[in-house]
């Protein structure tokens, strides 16, 4: 029985041992695609096969030609459409492919080889392209035929370093269809969208020497309706040509490296509608002596004292609670007529007025530039007041009044 017991234990132990060894196998991984061959022509040499003329045209490519380059275009954001742009150290070329979703296979930084076979090199408005010549213009490789011409090689690598451009005048022909970076440039009209909704759109990029390179953006780009940023910075993109115009195509908004400093915007925060009695209807009140009134014909606040004894009449605004969060909150009263030469006129603000007793509140004079201090504009009980101590024909008339502020970013 003891022997049997040992056998039992041994069997169970052996089984458990095998079970323990068994788990977690590493799953197989297919090798990446590679191209089994070499390029025998540079892209610059390929481009030289086709001198561009006044009309779009094409030239054939010698049999057995293989070129190689790194992809710099991407249709992921919809701005590049049905083409791949590749470049090597000598130049760049656009390959036309009749496939609208290339980016999953052909990512930026991917090296590809192109067996040119029956492809031709031609141009569209002087921008060189690889594809087929069909009815007077360049046509793309059919989607199903891609594997016959285009061969991916190895893992996706880094994007090639862009060529640095400070001026349009630095551009040479070998830079076309390559990645460039425009240094220290800005958009001529920031705030406009990248593209109009109806059609591809050109926007001017102003280089640091004021030369212009055009940003060309498809209306199908996912960022087409975004505004162009304000400010100066760098823009990366693929440089192309349209007849004589140099154009830049960005792949996505990460290519635009401009820290946006939007123009400060002046916002009207408060105004008096003088067509509608502000004293009766808009919260303004007359305190102290009688005097201030709504001058219907003139559509204005008005006060006048012909007498030889001075009066003390206050026109106090409603609480101005919406001025917070803005810079340079400014009171302006253009076309104000203040003929107070014998007496005195004051423009005040206060944050502790209780609504009835002007004398118990603390009033501070508004500086001559009309700017209300930041520490009071955030106070919801801020009021302004116009105090008239006029005599002997002094008068004051206010027909426009507004308070503006500037957005603080």
């Amino acid at each position, binding site marked *: 029985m003891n*022997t*049997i017991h040992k*056998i*039992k234990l041994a*069997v*169970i132990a*052996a*089984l458990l041992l*095998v*079970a323990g060894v*068994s*788990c977690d*196998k*590493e*799953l*197989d*991984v*297919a*090798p*990446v*695609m590679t191209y089994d061959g070499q390029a025998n022509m540079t892209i610059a040499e390929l481009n030289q096969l086709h001198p561009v003329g006044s009309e779009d045209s094409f030239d054939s490519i010698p049999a057995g030609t293989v070129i190689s380059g790194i992809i710099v275009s991407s249709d992921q954001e919809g701005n590049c459409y049905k083409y791949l742009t590749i470049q090597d150290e000598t130049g760049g070329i656009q390959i036309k492919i009749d*496939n609208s*979703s290339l980016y*999953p*296979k052909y*990512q930026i930084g*991917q090296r590809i080889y192109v067996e040119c076979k029956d492809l031709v090199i031609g141009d569209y408005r002087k921008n060189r392209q690889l594809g087929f010549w069909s009815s007077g213009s360049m046509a793309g490789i059919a*989607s*199903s*035929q891609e*594997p*016959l011409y285009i061969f*991916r*090689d*190895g*893992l*996706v690598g880094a994007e090639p370093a862009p060529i640095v451009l400070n001026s349009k005048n630095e551009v040479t022909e070998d830079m076309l269809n390559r990645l460039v970076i425009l240094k220290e440039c800005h958009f001529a009209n920031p705030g406009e969208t990248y593209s109009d909704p109806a059609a591809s759109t050109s926007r001017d990029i102003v280089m640091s020497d004021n030369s212009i390179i055009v940003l060309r953006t498809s209306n199908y780009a996912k960022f087409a309706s975004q505004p162009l940023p304000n400010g100066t910075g760098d823009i990366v993109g693929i440089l192309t040509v349209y007849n004589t115009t140099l154009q830049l195509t960005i792949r996505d908004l990460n290519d635009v490296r401009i820290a946006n400093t939007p123009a400060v915007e002046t916002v009207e925060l408060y105004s008096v509608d003088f067509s509608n009695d502000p004293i009766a209807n808009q919260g303004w009140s007359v305190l102290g002596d009688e005097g201030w009134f709504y001058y219907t014909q003139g559509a204005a606040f008005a006060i006048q004292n012909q007498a030889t004894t001075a009066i003390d009449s206050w026109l106090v605004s409603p609480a101005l609670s919406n001025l917070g969060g803005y810079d340079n909150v400014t009171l302006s009263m253009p076309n104000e007529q203040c003929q107070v030469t014998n007496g005195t006129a004051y423009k005040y603000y206060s944050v502790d007025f209780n609504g009835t007793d002007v004398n118990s509140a603390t009033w501070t004079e508004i500086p001559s530039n009309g700017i209300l201090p930041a520490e009071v504009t955030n106070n919801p009980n801020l009021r302004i007041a116009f105090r008239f101590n006029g005599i002997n024909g002094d008068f004051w008339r206010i027909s426009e009044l507004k308070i503006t502020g500037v957005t603080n970013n």
Partner: protein
Amino acid sequence: MDFANKFVHLHPIFINRISPMKKSFLAALILAFVCGTAFSQEDKSSKDSVTVQGTETVGTAFDSENVDDEETSTGGFVPGLLHSAQDVFSNNTSYTFSIAYFKARGIDARYQTVAINGIEMENLVTGRASYSQWGGLNRVFRWPENVLNLNPTTFAFGDLAGSTNFTTRASSYRKQIHANYSLTNRSYNNRLMLTYATGLMKNGWAVAASASTRFGSALSYVDGSSYLGGSYFLSVEKVFNSEHALNLSVWGSPTQRSLQSNATQEVYDLAGSHYYNANWGWYDGEKRNARIRTTFEPVFLMTYNFTPDNNKLQITANIGTTFGKQSTTSLNWANVPDPRPDYYRNLPSYYKDDPLLFNYYTEQWTTNENFRQIDWMSMYETNQLAAQLGNQAQYIVENRVISHVQAMANANIIANLTDHIKLMGGVDIRAFKQRNYKTINDLLGGSYWLNEDKYADGESPDNPYLLYDDLDNIGAHLGVGDKFGYDYAYHINRQNLWATAKFTYAHIDFHVGVNGTTTEMWRHGYMRNGRFPDNSQGNSEKKIFSDGGVKVGITYKINGRNYLVLNGLAQTMAPRVLDVFISPTIRNDYVSNLKSEKNLMADFSYIMRYPFMRMRLSAYYGMFMDVTSLFSFYHDDYGSYVNYAMTGINKRNYGFELGVEVPIGSMFTVYAAGTWGDYRYTNRPDVTITADNGYDILGNGESQYTETVYWKNFHVAGSPQVAATLGVKFNYKYWFVSINANYFDKIYADINPERRTTAARGTLSTDSPIYQSLIAQERLKGQFTMDASIGKSWKIKNSTLGFNISVTNLTNNKNLVTTAWEQRRFDYKNYDASKYPNKYYYAFGTTFYLGINYTFQ
């Protein structure tokens, strides 16, 4: 030692064909066998370790008679070995685990030998026995002799998944009149079965007959399903004397039933049911199903038994034939979009970038039944319009016909040479022909159909004949019943010779068996196809495969309570004819590098039999090498239907099985059984891809493209790799009650080899999420189920009345995935694995089976 040499002489071919590694494995098995002989001693206590002969017990709920016997609609799944009453693992799991499509040890049914009266019933094309040939005849196809796993077999060499032999000799049935009615909510709802047997009469004759019908589907889980089946069985035997007997058995089971579709999770979610069926649509006030399968494959079998009075010999010989048809209807269409409601372009996910359309499709799918089912009326309208214009019908229902005829003969011998040595052997010769073609079943209001292939490239200026499936009838207007598309036959001739010697001694039993098979196969085309006009018609080249096998095993009987059993089987097996032709529907060309498949399997068991506890603990290890597989799918990168021929697939299955039974008192038995397995691909097979459109889409000047599939260590799907059950049985005075809880896990989706190739990976980095989504193999969540049953029988004079009710999946778990697979189609354009997502079948929720039996003896 002597015997080992003899074995080598018998099968030099086999030995030479296998690699050194496999040779060393064999050598180890032989060594084990030789050592076994050295230890042998004289003792009378012998035991047939796991071989089991069915014995009648009353009131067993999980009796083959009381089991829904239908093949599931996925095809291919055949229930495991029933009735291994003595085996504590198999006995408690074979029915219980079938809800999860469990395959013991992950081995497919094609590796199981199924015989009737000792002659194999395997369909030589599929490699599997078709249980539907005797569907509904449960009373007479009852209690087969089951040999589990690698144990020695008396009626055949055996196979990796064991062997089963049914006996239909009329004299083997007790005299009886038996009636059975069953009500269930599975494939069919009602079954009525009547059986009559005379037993062996004084005049030496015996007659047994059975008839049954299965019908109704209103209670079924699947919408739009239907079922109608009838079955007959007649067996007549003349026992001439104590030595000679001749028996004729004929049976058949004509059945017509509808099929259930499979779907993606999106579709199941939209339809709100895991049993959504895309195959039906309203027509004329009825749910009309486009997929109807009609099967009738009758069998005629003449059996001669010779048992000399000296009790030393037993000879069984059969001559028989099977023939018949299986036809399956399906929609077909031309120049119009795919009409199937769950086609991927009809689903919201196809419009995921367009919220308007996405919402529209979602709304229609969830609220409009007509939208998510087949729109028969619009197909009729389209066809009627086309007919008025004199044009081809745009939609039809086609009938895919598989008809076969087989002639077979065998003879088996069992010789008791001495008290210790038993010799068994046999010869089997058969010829099998299966013809495959399509006919038009319904023109759906159209006027005619053209025999053109919609996937062929019609624009090829070089070859205007590419389009035509039947070059000799170009432009013929085809009507209902006409053949179209393809028409070809597989021919297979097979001869088999086997022998097994079994030795029984005091503490050691052992056996050794050998097997030799030659298989000849070829294709015959009846249609000249426009894409392959020169090699689509007539006979292909004939291929002959010579295969062999050896089976050894040793049992060490420590005492009457404890046994150690080591069994092994090594064999080669001709590839299935289904896998050897590149494009069997239209071409006579073979896949290159065809080889016989090699199997090596061994298991080791510890068996304990005490009155207080019975147990079996086993470990098994099996290798499948040089497996061949062929399938077809639409290849997005090539824009063509392609044939995907894989050769040299290696797989490895190993695992453990444990079964324990503990009686508690005289009425209760508590049992537990479980298995943990690990089934994986172990190499990188080659695949040859050929485009079916006849156009040189690959552009390399060759008609085929070869690549490597990188799927080493991925899981082989097809069965839960973990399954366990815990239950209790109660048995008292013909009352039988049982309840059990089950758990299934390590259920994997079948992977698409194409997604594990360099072509599919492209240049993606292994850490990229896209890459991960392409190669990750889905593992389904493990699931619990519960079953219960109750049965009782009463003996009233000469008759027995009994009933039983069994309820499967008591907790109504509707989330058990039985089959999952990655679609073969793959989005090469966007590398979006979710475009053609995985498809699933789910196990039914709660199902019941109620049976009432009456037997008069």
